[in-house]
């Protein structure tokens, strides 16, 4: 019997990788960050505990990256570009934790002003810029046109998801229903959209076994 797509083998892989499915780690990371944001907004935690929690939650990105690699091998979507993309994802995630921690620690300890404060404020955004670059780099490096098409489709879904989320939240904020959301949430929302786009693609492939 010919090997089917991830829908068949993926179930077996998921049972083997019980508890380490990338979606589980992604959900843990997302839920953790939302919880931290809520705790901060409601003034239940402050520095340095917010930083400790962010580091703790962000550490789930390491097993997320490893399980994503395992899953891509099991689902037959592994490629050199995918492996490089996962390596870069680990780099930006770890850099983000380190630079955010460093910037917050320096700001809260020495309260710098002027250009130094500007530099500190920009530091955590550097890994995010690297993340966006790595996405573009993946599209250039991926030699498998089908995998590239899937990533582009997921990216378009993520862009639509971000536009809708930002518009809806923006109007809720204008009418005073929701609190102000900082601009850096954009990349996080886009990344959630990217993950959702990939999940929807997998669902559709399982629902349509083809000819």
């Amino acid at each position, binding site marked *: 019997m*010919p*090997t*089917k*797509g*991830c829908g068949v083998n993926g179930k077996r892989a998921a049972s083997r990788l019980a508890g380490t499915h990338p979606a589980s780690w992604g959900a843990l990371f997302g839920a953790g960050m939302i919880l931290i944001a809520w705790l901060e907004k409601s003034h239940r935690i402050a520095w340095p505990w917010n930083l400790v929690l962010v580091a703790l939650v962000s550490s789930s990105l390491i097993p997320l990256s490893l399980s994503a690699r395992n899953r891509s091998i099991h*689902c*037959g*979507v*592994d*490629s050199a570009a995918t492996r490089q993309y996962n390596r870069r994802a680990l780099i930006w995630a770890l850099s983000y934790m380190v630079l955010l921690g460093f910037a917050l620690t320096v700001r809260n300890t020495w309260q710098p002003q002027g250009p130094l404060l500007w530099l500190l404020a920009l530091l955590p955004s550097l890994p995010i810029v690297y993340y966006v670059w790595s996405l573009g780099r993946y599209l250039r490096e991926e*030699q*498998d*046109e*089908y*995998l590239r*098409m899937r990533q582009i489709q997921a990216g378009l879904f993520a862009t639509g998801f971000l536009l809708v989320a930002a518009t809806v939240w923006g109007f809720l904020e204008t009418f005073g229903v929701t609190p102000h959301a900082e601009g850096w949430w954009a990349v996080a929302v886009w990344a959630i959209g990217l993950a959702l786009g990939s999940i929807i693609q997998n669902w559709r*492939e399982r629902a*349509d*076994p*083809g*000819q």
Partner: protein
Amino acid sequence: MNNRLKILRAERNWSQQDLAERLGVSRQSVNAIETGKYDPSLPLAFRIADLFEARIEAIFVRD
């Protein structure tokens, strides 16, 4: 678009993974092409045709 990829592959006793490795693509790509979920680009269609030593229109046919 329909195709005879599955038949040609079976004739050579190749798995999807074998074909994927010969074409330099992922197994999921082969699966998507074979099941008609994805139509390959012209360069990939030529690579497939070269591999099976057949004309493109002998492998890919209109619905």
